């Protein structure tokens, strides 16, 4: 939270309509992410949060609106600059099972994008992979193994290592822990938080569980039916929720103390 200067990402008036504007997946959304900051994005499935992620990494084209990365409009860049910028924004996906090629060793899965984007020299690649594996807490011998040899949590670590290999400035995490077991979720959340601090990364963290998003984010934006209905500091959102939908979300969080459940009912 310390290095907040100009925003690294500024989204304004973003719209994505499908089917001749009959489906408004993202409907006039604006937000900014500052350097080194984590913005959480919560909302239920179908509210458009993953579409926003896809728009930012340019897997989809916006119907309207601007996405400024370092004050540059991504959609107006020429091919070469686009290629350069692609490495700076990286994504971590929800399902670590389907996002790795089953026929590639982990070493290759990490190596190929690095060489393609000329992030490091061929001679250095081996060392760099080892450094990345170590950073995400995987043993060095993971390099020669295949995705099937790893558990869900380990695969998510691989996904993180691969995203980091391109030395990104902004990480888009689309529900990175939703598919993981509870005890593993905490490991991955801790890892993301440490890495974010160490590398002073900026992050957009998408989730549907409020407590997870709260834990990792500095600020939280609440989405409902394609719009951001509330945005606040991650603590203030809970102490002083403004929008009705936010209140519903907060009251839906199961209370972990069973003795309290009767009190809330009253």
């Amino acid at each position, binding site marked *: 939270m310390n290095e907040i200067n100009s925003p690294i990402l500024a989204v304004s008036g973003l719209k994505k309509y499908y089917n001749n504007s009959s489906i408004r997946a993202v409907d006039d959304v604006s937000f900014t992410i500052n350097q080194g900051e984590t913005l959480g994005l919560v909302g*239920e*499935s179908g509210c458009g949060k993953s579409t926003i992620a896809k728009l930012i990494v340019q897997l989809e084209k916006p119907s309207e609106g601007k996405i400024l990365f370092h004050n540059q409009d991504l959609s107006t860049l020429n091919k070469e600059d686009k290629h350069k910028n692609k490495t700076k924004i990286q994504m971590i996906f929800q399902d670590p099972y389907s996002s790795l090629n089953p026929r590639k060793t982990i070493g290759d899965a990490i190596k190929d994008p690095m060489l393609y984007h000329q992030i490091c020299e061929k001679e250095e690649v081996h060392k760099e992979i080892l450094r990345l594996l170590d950073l995400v807490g995987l043993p060095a011998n993971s390099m020669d193994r295949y995705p099937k040899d790893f*558990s*869900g*949590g*380990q695969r998510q670590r691989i996904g993180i290592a691969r995203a980091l290999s391109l030395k990104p400035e902004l990480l888009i995490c689309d529900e990175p822990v939703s598919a993981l*077991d*509870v*005890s*593993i*979720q*905490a*490991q991955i*959340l*801790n890892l993301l*938080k*440490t890495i974010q601090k160490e590398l002073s990364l900026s992050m957009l963290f998408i989730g*549907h*569980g*409020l*407590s*997870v998003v*709260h*834990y990792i984010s500095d600020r939280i934006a609440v989405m409902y039916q394609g719009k951001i209905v509330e945005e606040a500091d991650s*603590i203030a959102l*809970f*102490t002083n929720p403004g929008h009705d939908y936010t209140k*519903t*979300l907060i*009251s*839906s*969080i*199961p*209370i*972990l*103390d*069973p*003795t309290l*459940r009767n009190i809330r009912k009253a």
Partner: protein
Amino acid sequence: MIPLLKVEDLRIDFVSQKISYPIVDQLSFQVLPGEILAVVGESGSGKSISLLSLMGLLGSELKTTGGRAFFQEEDLFQKTEKELDQIRGKEISMVFQDALTSLNPVFTVGNQMIEGMKIHMGLSKQQAKERALLLLEKVGLPDPSSVFKKYPHTLSGGMRQRVMIAMALSCKPELLIADEPTTALDVTIQAQIIQLLKELREELNMAIILITHDMGLVAELADRVLVLYAGQIVEEAKVEDLFAKPSHPYTMGLLTSIPQIQTKIQKKQEPLQSIEGNVPDTFHDIEGCRFQNRCPYKTSGCEKQQQLHQAQTNHWSRCFRYDFIQKEASL
């Protein structure tokens, strides 16, 4: 009170031509009429398999190799397929995690709802339809008659889960087994389903076995909890006791690894307490406590096989240092 379901020393093996090894063992528990029992554990801990085994629904590579299970004092494992058919869907029914793949895509909601009622309750088509509409209304679906005519794919996730619950309730079961009933749903819908299950229990005095890995859901719904790890029960307690005095390091880890909402700036917990390592794929080659390799409190004695110890009245832990763990947890 006579237990509705009583399971004694259940053992399930994975059996293939080359190898066989246990995946669940020493599993004993009971469910009272009208009680909500939560079975908690991570994927691979054996929670779903144990319940499927009771219903005679294990896949071909899994075999129930030991133990007994009594439902209303009758031994389920002695029953023929035909007799089980009388119980499944009628006395005991199940709600699965993924409602889309559990509903038949080529039949309307109504069609698949009335089928079970015709078979189990001997209702006529018209009677079954009336009951189906009533049930759809009971589970909170707006406009039941239109839902009745729809195909599963046209409904949202929350609606499908409600249809599943309505179907499961159609023959007035004594016991409902709900396998991760809200995992695939949004938080607001989850809260509605929790409320619905609570109301139905009150109204019908139906017992529920809730299989889940979500401690929040457990806290909201359950009366009693079984914590499973690597195929065995590691802790069993009333829900209040489990949360107030966890007595097994695994339970404690589960509770502390969940992020809590902090409303004071200075109190944002960091880092989260996580359980290191991974759930073992198999445990038959682990000597002694199956959690020892991930346990922060490992000490001499953990290499011995662990029994369930009574930590308090009706509170059992498979850790011989349950006293110490309780104290640690209260810090």
